[in-house]
């Protein structure tokens, strides 16, 4: 949160999404480097674009933005739904496209005490509650596909991009919760105090997206 004309602080997700996001920024005419020589740096000034990148773990991006230590950020809809932070969701960037799904073994049948393993406990709980089902949600941090194979849970809720991992493990998608893409988000105060800069970035990105579509 700085005054108009000041450097825009951008919380950028490290890794896979960064490459696609920086490509989109470059297509929108913003001189953003493709990769950084020293990938261990956490704060990277990009004076050409009047920005400063805060390289964050994707799941932390909404937190930085909500507290205002970053003015804007780029984050997947999956994280946004799970973290449930009070931020502006300004633009669908259409990158890192995948979907959130309920997955199980092909011969799955309803069980009396359903257990669902997931990295997204809030999303999963909410989904089943809305459908009038009470399930035990088990939070895991990785290799979610293991859970139904070894009998920890009868189903999982996870992101599916191509479905290849599922296929290799003999699992099938049963329901889709929602489509996931990366979003441009903004802090409540920055969105007002730095409105011109944020709006112009938003416009350039959405023009670029419209041209691609």
């Amino acid at each position, binding site marked *: *949160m*700085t*005054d108009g004309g000041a450097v825009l602080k951008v919380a950028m997700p490290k890794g896979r999404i960064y490459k696609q996001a920086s490509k989109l920024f470059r297509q929108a005419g913003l001189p953003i480097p493709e990769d950084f020589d020293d990938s261990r740096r956490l704060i990277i000034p990009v004076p050409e674009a009047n920005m400063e990148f805060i390289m964050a773990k994707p799941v932390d991006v909404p*937190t930085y933005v*909500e*507290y*205002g*230590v970053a003015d804007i950020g780029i984050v997947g809809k999956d994280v946004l739904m799970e973290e449930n*932070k*009070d*931020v*502006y*969701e*300004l*633009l*669908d960037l259409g990158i890192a496209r995948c979907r959130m799904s309920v997955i199980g073994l092909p011969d799955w049948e309803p069980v009396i005490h359903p257990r669902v393993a997931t990295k997204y406990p809030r999303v999963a709980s909410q989904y089943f509650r809305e459908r009038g089902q009470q399930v035990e949600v088990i939070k895991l941090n990785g290799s979610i596909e293991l859970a139904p194979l070894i009998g920890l849970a009868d189903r999982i809720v996870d992101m599916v991009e191509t479905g290849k991992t599922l296929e290799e493990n003999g699992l099938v998608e049963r329901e889709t919760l929602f489509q996931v893409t990366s*979003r441009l988000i903004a*802090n*409540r*105060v*920055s969105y*007002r*105090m730095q*409105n011109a800069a944020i709006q112009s970035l938003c416009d350039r990105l959405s023009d670029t997206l419209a041209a691609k579509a």
Partner: protein
Amino acid sequence: MSKPKGFEKPIGVKDYLPHAVAKLRRIEHEVLACMRGWGYEQILTPTIEYYDTVGVASATSDQKLFKLLNQRGTTIVLRSDVTAPIARVASSLLKDHPFPLRLSYHANVFRAFEEEAGREAEFFQTGVELIGDPSPEADAEVIALAIASLKAAGVPSFKIAVGHVGFLNGLFGDTLPGRAEAQERLKECLLQRDYVGYRTALAELRLEDSVLRELEGLLRLRGGQEVCERALELRVSDGARDAIRHLCEMWDVLGAYGVQDHVLIDLTMIGDISYYTGMTFEGYASQLGFPVCSGGRYDNLLAQFGRPAPATGFALKTTRMLEVAEVGQEEPVRALIRYSPNRRREALEKAAGLRAEGLAVVTEGIAQTGDGRRAAGGSGAGDALASAPSGRYEYKGTVYDQVFMFDEKGGDPQ
């Protein structure tokens, strides 16, 4: 959860140490003085209220209220704001007082938050309510007073965004007649600040192109007077037009107050739709990630206490302002007087004299034994009087501007 350790306190509450309290009191003092200058008189209401009256009427959602049971089993709430208690007072104790009523308050309020995110379970609010005046003039007055209060508190740079609930209700009602569900969905998206969801919802509603463009354009209706003019071009009926005219008039009044620079009109501002009935606004300070004030018009609240009346007001989030406010700190001149028992009276008279002059004076008795070692008032390393910068003295962790010594030998004060 394991048993709390001695230093722990419930999540969301804070201790304020002397330095922070001094600043908080200063902000409170400056802001209340500013409000008094506009004819608002301060009121105090209880910390606890009945759930069925103030609790239900307040803008705070049910799960965010702190609830307790009293010995009779009646549900009590810790006040979550002061607006609903003031509505109760205006309709009961002050029911014969003619409108308009101008009241101010400074109080701690409570919210039951389960999670972190900088949300406090107890925080201070300073605010005003202007009851009994429905005019744009009254709405502009509270916004201008909010601006004056933020300035008085020393908030260096801030903006106020103003919207109107009636405009959105009118616009959606006119463009989506009879489609209550769709209207709710769009409002919910705006309330959640989810512009992506808003556009997605619009795309799924299969609207005429012109309507679609109008509703999409809403996301860009932000700025000054020109926003009102653009909004009036939309094909909307009386409800929405009245709202825009109200905002236009407010804008003119704010111009007369000379504060338009701090204000921007944002027609996507929605506030709490179940509570606010007209204009709503929020204040933002640079260097602070969360809003510093919020307010608006709530014409339905007073009726719940039996005295229907239009009302408008705002609350400053005083605790948050603590981080950014630049108020002058008036540090008292501190003096230390140390004395031996035979000169106690003389020393304490000196202290009284200095206190009358406005100094902060600490006195300490020293009992000296035959060999000259101190027996009372502590002893040991770190107790020695040390010099501090700019000719001051440090003693037991406090810095004093003046030190006086009344000892047995009758030596001169230092």
